[in-house]
């Protein structure tokens, strides 16, 4: 029932789009079929999957780095009042710096290269992850802490069975919101200073030919990939960490 409703809503949307596009008859509002046609041609040349693959690799690497550093930083901030006092303001500044500013500065200071792109994404995403995990580390159950101390849990046991399970829901939440944030930023970074990737391709078709079918085609393919990752990997991970509830 739920699935049928979702499918119907998508089909109605597509039909309405097709009708509107036919009525307008402009290449600035291409019909869904025109976009499908572009996707087929672009993937036949291999360009589409090359660009999508490169963007995916950038998202993957920077996502991994930002999650790892952000989780560690967040735990440290949540457990050390002093460290939090030292880093809270810089974190707040970073959290409120526009992605565009961080990106431009990274390209200027690090150079117009891959490392700068990765640094820019990590710096954009890391504060979000750290803030979410800080909340998690602050909310650790003091009763379980006492229990663990009274039973002399060793450090490994405490980390694996007391700390990590309490932080898992926060880490998964940070991963889900972080993944969508990361890929949106990666596209901007590619548009500003990379010679390949989905962001580059969209910019190319925008500047060269105002090819809206191409812009939408790239966007739809990449969004589909990211949604698939969210559903197939992250949502399952979330269900797994909540299995005991």
């Amino acid at each position: 029932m739920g699935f049928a409703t979702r499918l119907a809503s998508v089909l109605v949307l597509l039909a309405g789009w097709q009708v509107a596009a036919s009525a307008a008859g402009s290449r600035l509002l291409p019909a869904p079929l025109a976009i499908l046609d572009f996707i087929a041609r672009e993937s036949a040349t291999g360009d589409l999957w090359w660009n999508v693959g490169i963007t995916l690799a950038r998202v993957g690497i920077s996502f991994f780095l930002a999650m790892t550093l952000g989780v560690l930083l967040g735990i440290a901030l949540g457990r050390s009042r002093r460290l939090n006092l030292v880093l809270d303001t810089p974190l707040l500044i970073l959290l409120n710096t526009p992605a565009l500013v961080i990106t431009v500065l990274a390209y200027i200071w690090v150079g117009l290269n891959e490392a700068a792109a990765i640094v820019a994404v990590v710096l954009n995403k890391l504060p979000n992850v750290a803030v979410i995990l800080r909340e998690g580390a602050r909310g650790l159950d003091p009763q379980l802490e006492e229990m663990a101390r009274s039973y002399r849990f060793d450090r490994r046991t405490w980390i694996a069975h007391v700390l990590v399970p309490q932080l898992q829901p926060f880490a998964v939440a940070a991963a889900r919101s972080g993944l969508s944030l990361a890929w949106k930023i990666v596209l901007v970074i590619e548009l500003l200073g990379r010679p390949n990737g989905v962001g580059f391709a969209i910019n190319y078709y925008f500047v060269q030919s105002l090819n809206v079918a191409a812009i939408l085609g790239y966007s739809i393919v990449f969004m589909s990939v990211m949604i698939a990752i969210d559903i197939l990997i992250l949502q399952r991970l979330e269900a797994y960490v909540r299995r005991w509830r």
Partner: protein
Amino acid sequence: MPVSDTADAALRVEILRKVYGGGGPEPVEAVRDLAFTVTAGAITCLIGPSGAGKTTTLRILLGLDPDYEGRVTPPPDEAGIAMAFQEPRLLPWRTVEQNVRLALPRPARAQNLDALFESLGLTPWRGRYPGALSLGMARRVSLARALAQKPRILILDEPFVSLDDNAAASLRGLVVAAVEASGMGVLMVTHNVAEALEIADRLLLVSGRPASLLGTIALDRPRGQRDRGWVEANRASLAGRFPGVIAS
């Protein structure tokens, strides 16, 4: 089981003073002059009104609070004291069995615990998560976790509170059976005198805020022969002698 004063003290407690907020404007004295021993093979009940500093005392015994004046002499063994908290404090993301095993030192985790789970009626629940258990069952798991340590001293903090009569009675029976089987000493903290009169060998009566010892009473009637009439008569007499401690 009569308890003589010469029975070996497995745990010796002398708290001269415990103050909260010592440096602040209004320090609160939680404990003053509370000295007692817990002997092996016997159940000692610490009775006092709610909010009397009983939990503070337990935290000191467990070494969770080093900030007090006095001295606690625990049993010499490494795993000398095990505690079943008032709230079961189980890891909700680990199964019943994992909760018991993870509290053991690493080398002891693989041991066979069938007899322990069986004796507590937990065998069918070993693979379940704590969220699926009633409070009574969760308390049993918490007791199993403490008993698995094979402690010299078992501490129980209000172990029967908020249980229905049947669950409380069956858990009491399990505690008594465990003590009699192992010879460990039990320190049980409660505000319920009738409950203490049913299973204790010795009562320690503690005043409220600051907690300090008012009296020690040895109960010499064997546990099996304490009927309702005996419990009620003793409760009434204690309520007369210690009106601030025991509600009549």
